[in-house]
């Protein structure tokens, strides 16, 4: 399909230019997916379909618009694009809105990112059902008499995208994605019915853990929630579990984006080159991770990607600045969004760290809350466990942590050795000292 997709994108650009566009960027995408879930040992939902779409950005007389459509027939597209060009002319001029300087397209790495599973085409309906059944069986078995309900699900997809621009950009990416999950609800005291889940995402089927492990993980995580209660407000060390770090890190990252900096919505805007966190805090943006969920050879602007150390031992090195906001800021662009975000793992396991800390709270989930990119203030509900003498002693619910990012990351005292690999953000568990956890 690659050539057909390129041909269609090239044709769309030609139509836009003949309708009066100065420049444009067109992308064509396709997706095929299958999604199956089971409950009570029978299929609950079976869904399967293909989608396709065109996105086009139009630059005309210093004006800009973006449109999307999925009718890829040329006669329909011709009117679609021509009218888009006419209406774009009605908007206000924006001197900063252009296609990127093509010099940033150059230097693209020549490598295979390993994002297509060669076995994808051999995946049968029977194999999919077998996977989901195994997740459900395992969860039911491990959940025992506490089980109220178990849902198991498997999703797989094949995606392609071809992008062309009128100033010489050309890019094609294809990928396979697999997702498996188990979800269990258990009977707790009274009317409380806690729900927990486990999941994994990978670009290779072999990259997923065995389905039995997902099912057992869902049961284990759910049973661990039983008896959850609110404790007294206390200043205490916390460990944020690897898979949940992204929730807190995401709030910090908002302040690193060019738009928020230019729009005066970033508490980090004037902190480049400064120490804003403890020495344990390093963030690397690495687009070249083999089969990484965020791996890419070019970014949304078409820039050739680079590995960047965004925060180095607590010092803020770089921002995520795309072409448009780099022009507004008068800065050199970097990249507009993260690829794979990596916090380099430490040496010790969570178990060893807990033993060493003695008493604290392990956070295994967040609830609601907010992170303010303008001020850095944040407040979020937590779910987890109190540990004493290194052992889990009490499930925790309905509690809250609050603070400011500029202070919070200075309290990072250790990074564990357990990076979460089923995400674009490969984060290990993080240990913070002196956090106010509020409850009763």
């Amino acid at each position, binding site marked *: 399909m690659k050539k057909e997709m390129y041909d269609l994108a090239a044709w769309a650009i030609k139509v836009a230019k003949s309708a009066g566009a100065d420049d444009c960027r067109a992308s064509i995408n396709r997706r095929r997916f299958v999604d199956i879930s089971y409950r009570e040992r029978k299929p609950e939902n079976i869904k399967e379909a293909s989608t396709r779409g065109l996105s086009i950005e139009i630059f005309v007389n210093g004006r800009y618009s973006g449109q999307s459509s999925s009718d890829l027939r040329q006669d329909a597209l011709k009117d679609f694009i021509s009218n888009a060009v006419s209406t774009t002319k009605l908007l206000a001029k924006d001197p900063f809105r252009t296609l990127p300087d093509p010099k940033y397209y150059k230097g693209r790495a020549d490598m295979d990112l390993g994002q297509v599973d060669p076995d994808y085409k051999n995946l049968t309906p029977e194999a999919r059902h077998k996977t989901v059944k195994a997740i459900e069986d395992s969860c039911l078995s491990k959940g025992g008499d506490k089980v109220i309900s178990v849902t198991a699900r498997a999703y797989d997809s094949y995606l392609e995208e071809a992008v062309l621009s009128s100033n010489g950009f050309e890019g094609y990416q294809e990928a396979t994605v697999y997702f498996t999950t188990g979800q269990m609800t258990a009977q707790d005291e009274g009317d409380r019915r806690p729900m927990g889940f486990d999941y994994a995402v990978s670009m290779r089927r072999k990259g997923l853990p065995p389905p039995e492990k997902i099912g057992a993980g869902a049961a284990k995580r759910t049973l661990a929630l039983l008896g959850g209660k609110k404790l007294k407000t206390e200043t205490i060390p916390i460990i944020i579990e690897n898979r949940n770090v992204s929730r807190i890190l995401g709030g910090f990252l908002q302040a690193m984006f060019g738009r928020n900096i230019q729009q005066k919505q970033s508490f980090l805007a004037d902190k480049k080159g400064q120490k804003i966190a403890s020495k344990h805090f390093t963030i690397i943006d690495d687009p070249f991770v083999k089969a990484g969920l965020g791996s890419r050879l070019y970014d949304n602007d078409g820039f050739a990607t680079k590995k960047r150390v965004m925060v180095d031992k607590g010092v803020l090195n770089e921002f995520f600045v795309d072409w448009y906001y780099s022009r507004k800021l008068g800065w050199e662009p970097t990249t507009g969004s993260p690829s794979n975000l990596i916090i380099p793992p430490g040496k010790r396991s969570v178990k060893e760290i807990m033993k060493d800390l003695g008493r604290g709270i392990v956070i295994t989930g967040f609830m609601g809350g907010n992170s303010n990119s303008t001020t850095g203030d944040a407040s979020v509900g937590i779910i987890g466990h109190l540990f004493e003498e290194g052992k889990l002693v009490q499930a925790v619910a309905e509690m809250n942590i609050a*603070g400011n990012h500029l202070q919070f990351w200075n309290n990072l005292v250790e990074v564990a050795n357990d990076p979460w690999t089923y995400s674009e953000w490969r984060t290990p568990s993080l240990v913070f000292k002196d956090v106010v956890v509020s409850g009763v």
Partner: protein
Amino acid sequence: MKIITRRTFLKTTGKAAIAAATVPGLPWGWYNLARAEQPAYFEAEFGITDKLCQKVLAAALSKGGDFADLYFEHTIRNWVLLEDGIVNRAYSDVVLGVGIRTVKGDQVGYGFTQELAEKPMLNAASIAATIAEAKAKKPAGKLMPMKLKNYYPLKKLLTSVPLESRLPLVQSVNDKCFSLSPLVAKVSAGFHDEQKRILVVTSDGAKAEDLLPKTYLYASVVAEKNGKRERAGWNFGGRREFSYYTKALRDELATIAVNRAVILFDAVQPPAGEMPVVLGPGVTAVLLHEAIGHGMEADFNRKKISTYATMIGKKVAEPFVTIIDDGTNPNMLGSLNVDDEGTPGQRTVLVDNGILTSYMHDKISAKHYKVKPTGNGRRQSYQHYVQPRMRNTYMEAGPAAPEDVIKSVKKGIYVQDVSNGQVKIGEGDFAFYVSQGKMVENGKLTAPIKDINIMGNGPKMLQNTTMLANDLKMNQGGAGYCGKGGQAVPCGFGMPTALVKSMTVGGVRARGGRG
């Protein structure tokens, strides 16, 4: 409830290609679909005849099943956005397709296609049919169009309003914001409109068409004072026409947005711990929606995973508490003339004077509970399953005067607005971010508060609602979405002033001080 920004939307659609198709042969842009309001729209525009529908329904039931349905959708969305003083970008998106569902008990087979032609539709139907494994079943021999009330009639189609008319709406909000305070440093503003046309055809012979408008105007303000910055915003909207956005409304929008940003310079973080919480009227109903409403959606109860699963007929609140979920409020964001599986719009009493009387049902759960569907079967688009979802959810007014509710609190907080809510259905536990509020000290509202979370438990909060005022206010926003099972649908809500006698407030300090 979450506001979906265009940026998020583009990411979603771009990566997963969820967005659908354009209309063949129609002019693109700010569409002028002259025939959009006439009956049999899908037949006139796309050749969707009763005969074709029956053929596809027969294919969906080719392996049996209880019933099947077709959901045709044609949606046109536009955004015009302002940044740094100019309306400098516009986006459009067109969704066209049909979802085909086969239901057997509580099992669902689902296929969809973006091509409204016989072959791809039959192919999608054959995928849906795989959920059943019995003898073929015949759909009804004749389709009967449903007569529906219209809770959001349009005098003028959104698609017939030219781009030129939209630009001044946004520009005037920006200009007003800057005129209101020298502290205003940045304004972003935008106008969104969506015109959604649906046709639902069921294997029992029902056929329902609807035209759902949705618009909103928003402003987000960054203010600067003594080197500090604060940000806040507001929006007005619903199933509204262009004529709703008068100069007075636009000025009110700007005033609210600016005031909400500027007041934060004086805001403090309250002490952490348990305390009484007064919920102000209107938008705090997000709490009702998240912490209580979701638990009353029937699918969670049918699966016994909601904390309300065993509470029908039981007392869940004080006798002055009545909770409604309503599809019939004129021009409200969650109103529906018909739901997405062909049940007419209606009003459902969930809690009647303190007693839990009904869940919110789709057809699957209604059959399970042997009750009539309540018109809550909703889906994000033709690509999605039907789920029981809220429409406009509100607590009816109570007996107290609002000032008496505040007077009753010695030390606590008054919540004016919340966002980023999340609830755990099985436990009923929830957490919310308080974006605007005040301290309550000795029965009076004092310092504004900011950047805190409130946490609690839905059933407990309902039991602990000890005072309810007579000032029910329906929220007039248009940008809110509710997320569930990976699907976003617009919902409305309303709330009178209420006292919850105890809730966890998460500030930065331990109990004992503020400022």
